[in-house]
C-alpha cells in the first residue's frame, strides 16, 4: 500500500537548511494498522504530507496506493483518504453539506454522495448533528466529522494525523472505538501519527518510531519492548545500604531505598534475584515487576523520554 525509498524533505528557512525528513524507507502492506510514533518535530507530519501529495519530496520516492506521489498525484489522491491535524469542516458550513461536497469532490454523483454522507453520519453517531455547523460541535464530534470526511469515497488507505490529540480521555477512547469499527466495516489500511504512547501501544499492530527525521524502530509493540527495553524489576529495602548492595548484585540502579533493574523476562528473573539477595543478607521489603512501555523503548534508543515536551525539533 505504501512503499517509500529514501524519502527526504529539506526546508529552507531564512537561509538555514532544515532536514525535516532524512531518507525514510517504509513498506506498509494492505490491511495493516500502523502507528507512526515520535516526539513533536520528529518529522511525522512532514512524512505524512509527502505521502498524501500535499508536499513534494526533495529526495527519494514514494508509491502510495499503487501510484507515484510525484508523477501521478491525482491518482494517489483518488485512492487515499486524509484526516489532517486541523478541523476539516469549514466553519460556515453544515456537517452534512460538507460531506456531500466532499463526495462530489471525489467524483461521486450527488445522490450517491448524499447516501454515503448519511451512511457515515450514522456510522459515526453524528446523525442528529447533520445540520449543525462545526462551531457548535464538541471536540470529539468534530473529530468524528473529520474522519467521516476522510472516508466518503471509501478509500483503501486512510491517513490520520494525530487523530486524538487535544481530546479528553473519554473522547479519545470514543474516537478509537469508531476508528476500529470503521476498519472492521471497510477493511481500510490505516496509517496514523500519534505522540500518545498508550495509543500506539494498545491499538496499533505495528509501531514505527521516528526521531530527528529518521526511522529508529519498526515492529509490533511487543517485539519492540522485548528486543529493545526488557522488563523492569523494582524492589525496596529497609536501608539505603542494603539498596546499594542489592543494586550491585542485580546490576541495577539504587535511588534511596528503591532499586530498579532491567531484565529479559521479569517473571523468571525475580525469584532468582530474591534468592541471591537473601544469600547476601539483604532483605527485600517489597518487590514488583513491570512490563516495559514504548517510552522505555524510546529511552533506550535515544537516551531521551518521549514524554519530555522540550525535545529539540
Amino acid at each position, binding site marked *: 500500500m505504501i512503499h517509500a525509498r529514501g524519502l527526504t524533505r529539506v526546508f529552507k528557512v531564512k537561509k538555514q537548511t532544515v532536514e525535516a525528513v532524512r531518507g525514510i524507507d517504509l513498506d506498509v502492506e494492505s490491511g495493516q494498522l500502523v502507528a507512526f510514533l515520535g516526539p513533536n518535530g520528529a518529522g511525522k507530519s512532514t512524512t505524512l504530507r509527502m505521502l498524501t501529495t500535499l508536499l513534494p519530496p526533495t529526495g527519494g520516492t514514494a508509491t502510495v496506493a499503487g501510484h507515484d506521489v510525484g508523477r501521478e498525484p491525482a491518482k494517489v489522491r483518488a485512492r487515499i483518504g486524509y484526516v489532517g491535524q486541523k478541523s476539516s469542516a469549514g466553519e460556515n458550513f453544515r456537517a452534512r453539506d460538507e460531506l456531500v461536497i466532499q463526495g462530489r469532490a*471525489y*467524483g461521486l454523483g450527488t445522490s450517491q454522495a448524499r447516501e454515503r454522507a448519511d451512511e457515515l453520519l450514522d456510522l459515526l453517531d453524528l446523525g442528529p448533528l447533520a445540520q449543525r455547523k462545526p462551531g457548535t460541535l464538541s471536540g470529539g464530534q468534530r473529530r468524528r466529522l473529520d474522519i467521516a470526511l476522510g472516508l466518503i469515497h471509501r478509500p483503501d488507505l486512510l491517513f490520520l494525523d494525530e487523530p486524538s490529540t487535544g481530546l479528553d480521555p473519554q473522547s479519545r477512547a470514543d474516537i478509537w472505538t469508531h476508528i476500529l469499527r470503521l476498519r472492521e466495516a471497510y477493511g481500510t489500511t490505516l496509517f496514523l501519527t500519534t505522540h500518545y504512547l498508550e495509543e500506539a501501544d494498545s491499538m496499533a499492530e505495528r509501531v514505527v518510531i521516528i526521531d530527528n527525521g529518521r526511522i529508529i524502530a519498526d515492529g509490533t509493540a511487543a517485539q519492540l519492548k522485548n528486543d529493545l527495553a526488557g522488563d523492569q524489576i523494582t524492589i525496596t529495602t529497609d536501608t539505603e545500604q542494603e539498596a546499594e548492595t542489592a543494586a550491585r548484585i542485580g546490576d541495577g540502579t539504587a535511588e534511596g531505598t528503591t532499586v530498579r533493574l532491567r531484565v529479559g523476562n521479569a517473571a523468571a528473573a525475580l525469584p532468582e534475584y530474591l534468592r541471591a539477595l537473601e544469600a547476601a543478607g539483604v532483605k527485600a521489603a517489597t518487590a514488583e515487576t513491570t512490563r516495559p512501555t514504548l517510552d522505555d523503548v524510546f529511552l533506550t534508543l535515544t537516551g531521551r523520554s518521549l514524554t519530555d515536551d522540550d525535545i529539540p525539533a
Partner: protein
Amino acid sequence: MTTFLRDTATVFTREITPAVREPVGLLFDMGQPLLFLFLFGSLLDGAVGSSWQWFVPGILVMMCLSGPMAAGYTLLVDLIGGSMERMLVTPMNRTAMLVGRTMKAMVILLAQAVLIIVLALPLGFQLHPAGVLAGLAMLVALGIGLGALSFVLAIKSAPDGTLFYIVTQVLLFPLLLLSGVLLPIDAGPGWLRVIGHLNPITYIVDAQRALFAGDLTAPSVLYGTAATLVVAVVGLVLGNRAMRQGV
C-alpha cells in the same frame, strides 16, 4: 475539461450553499453600502446634479471592491483551518477551486447590484438598460480580477493571515475614498486630484457613472474599460501563477 467543469460546479455549490440557506445574511453584508447610499444620497441630493444617478454607480464599485476581498477572506479562513487542506488531498482541479469561488462572489455581487438598483428606482434613479448592462459587465470583469488578486493575497498570507488584514485594511478604504466613490474629488485641491488620477478605481467609477447615465460613448468609458482590463489581466496572471506554485 469535463472534470474541470464538474469541479468548478462542486466548489461553486459549496460556497453558495450558506448564502442560499440563509439569504438574510446577504442583506446584512449590504448594510454599509445601503447606509452610504441612503445617507449620502439624501445629503448630496442637488449638490451633484441628480445624486442618485451619481451615487448608485459609486456604491456598486464600492461593493465590487469589498465583495472580492470577502472572497479572499473566506479562502484565508479555509487555509488557516483545515478545510482547504482537506480539499487539496482530493483529486479536484486546483484552478477549479478558485474559479468556483470567484463565480460565487460574482453571483452574489450581481444579486446585490440588482437589489441596489431596484431600491434606488423609486428614489428617482433613472434606468438606462444598455448602460446598466455594460456597467454590470465591467463590474464583473473588475470583480474577477480583484477576486483573483485577493486569492493570491490570501495564499501568500497563510497561515497567520496578518498580511491579508494589513493590505485589505490599509489599502481598501483609501482606494475607495480617493476614487471619488462617496464624495466628488473634482472639486478638491490639486494634490487630491493628482492622487485621484493615479488611482485606477477613479477611472472605473467615472466610466460607471457615464454608463449609468446612458452615455456609452463617453471617453471615460474607454479609460474605465482599460483600467478594468489591466486589473483583470494582472489578477488572472498572478492568480494562475500562485495556483501553479501550489497552495
